[in-house]
């Protein structure tokens, strides 16, 4: 499994430079590793310039509400090897701020605008980061946060047309599959 070994070698090489977490291998060509927030930009630059991971595939966030943390995922790709490595960055949920990467990849500015709007994560210095990107005149908390209830918001703000019935799928299919009421 050559790609896997190169991925492990890459991990070991990086560990000498940055305090990385364990390498979690999802696929032979895809692995994720956790990076401390302050070491993100150096490791991104190192991966881009020294290791040839020149393509920022995506930058997104996951809201771990229970742990009170945001997970930022920077997915980098190296086309010649067909390998992807994802850098996880855990940042505190309240007052979330992250160093901007728009000078490393110009496209990162777009992702950061979306994260700023949808998760409320601030990226100081990123161009046009505070402008409206997708939403317009949004008044509630950022919608992609886990504690934002879209159904409640929709029912409060938009007038519904009467006559629409919505069932909880689990109970509905329970009745459909097991009409005698036993637990399936």
């Amino acid at each position, binding site marked *: 499994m050559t790609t896997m070994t190169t991925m492990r070698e890459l991990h070991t090489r990086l560990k000498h430079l940055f305090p990385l977490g364990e390498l979690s291998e999802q696929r032979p060509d895809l692995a994720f590793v956790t990076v401390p927030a302050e070491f993100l930009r150096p490791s991104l630059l190192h991966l881009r310039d020294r290791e040839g991971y*020149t393509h920022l*595939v995506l930058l997104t*966030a996951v809201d771990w509400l229970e742990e009170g943390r945001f997970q930022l995922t920077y997915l980098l790709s190296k*086309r010649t090897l*067909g390998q992807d490595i994802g850098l996880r960055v855990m940042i505190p949920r309240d007052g979330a701020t992250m160093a901007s990467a728009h000078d490393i990849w*110009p496209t990162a500015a777009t992702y950061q605008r979306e994260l700023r709007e949808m998760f409320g994560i601030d990226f100081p210095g990123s161009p046009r980061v505070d402008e*409206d990107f997708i939403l317009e005149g949004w008044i509630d908390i950022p919608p992609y946060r*886990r504690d934002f209830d*879209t159904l409640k918001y929709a029912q409060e703000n938009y007038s519904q047309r009467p006559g629409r019935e919505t069932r909880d799928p689990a109970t509905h299919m329970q009745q459909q599959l097991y009409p005698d009421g036993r637990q399936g």
Partner: protein
Amino acid sequence: MNFFAPDRSQYPATKTDGTLDIDLNSGKYLKLWQGPNHPGITGNMSVELTVCGDEVVEGRTHVGYLHRGFEKLMERRTFIQCFPIVCRICVPEPDFNEYCYAAAVEELAGIQSPERANWIRALILEMGRINSYLMYLGGQAGALGQGVIGQWTTYVRDLMLDRFEELTGARIYHMFILPGGVRDGLPEGFEQRMEVTLREIENTLKDVYDVMFCNAVFKKRTVGLGYIDPALLDSYGVTGPNARAAGVAKDVRRDQPYLVYPDLDFAPVIGQDSDIYTRADVRRRDLLMSVDLIRQILARMPRNGPVMAETPSVLHWQIPRGETYIRGECSRGEYGYYLVTDGSGYPRRVNVRGPSYTHAMALLERMIVNVNISDVAALMVSLHTYPPEIER
């Protein structure tokens, strides 16, 4: 010699801090909104142009007109409930959403989709690619005022939609590739009817080539316009035909083969000049390659066998904590799904990464400067952007 198009590379002037030196109150500049209500726009988006005379000095892309919050809606739907809504994300080529979502769920749930299902998936994806390319060709010619091409390509696209209809039962939203496999096998006599359709498409493409690509005016308008520097491909995240037209063989079907693509023989279509004409030509040849791929798939695919793997009961389907990223080569570039699960019956986070996300925002805003107003529509169409991928 070039009296009509002098070199404006140093225009507009930039201030010391790098921002453009544009004073809207000087009366020299005019703000134009191209879109959302504009025939020359691709889908429902808009570009805010600042023009000086006949030339664009600044362009800002505005999206969000089609935002439905899919990624939020999927967080409150079970894994099987997500399946019918993912295809709504991207209209011209919905199947890639179904495939990427299904593959991501299968990988995290440890399900292996059957061999025959993979062949049918590849078939559907290539059919969708043909649809998308046909629509693009019509749009590219229409943006330059050549409406007849759109008539012809939409006509054959309807024929391909008929094949979709008899295979999946729907014209646009097929909802055919679900986690675990596909819904059904091929109907009786599908191969022959598909062969007829493919011949019709090839004949139409011959006419399109004669009328569109050999047209002096079309060349005059498109050759040398909208150049993308190959050095910028990675920093701007350019993928798909836009990158292949710049001479870089970026094709996920070759770089990270998925489904049955390792068994098929094809080579990525490459162009060199990286202008609008080359991008259109690359897409035309790529379309012909998809026609050939469909013939290969239909010839080699297993005739019988299961099309659906064993999946847990949808009532109690829970997937352990994990995260993965699945990508595929759609007609506009690399299409990817980033799925995170937390052990519950609902996805923790789904992120759709469409190719237009980078093409229409950072890349377009860079390319649109110093372009004549007349060429804005053609430039935008030539990037083959589609807004719902940007905002979901």
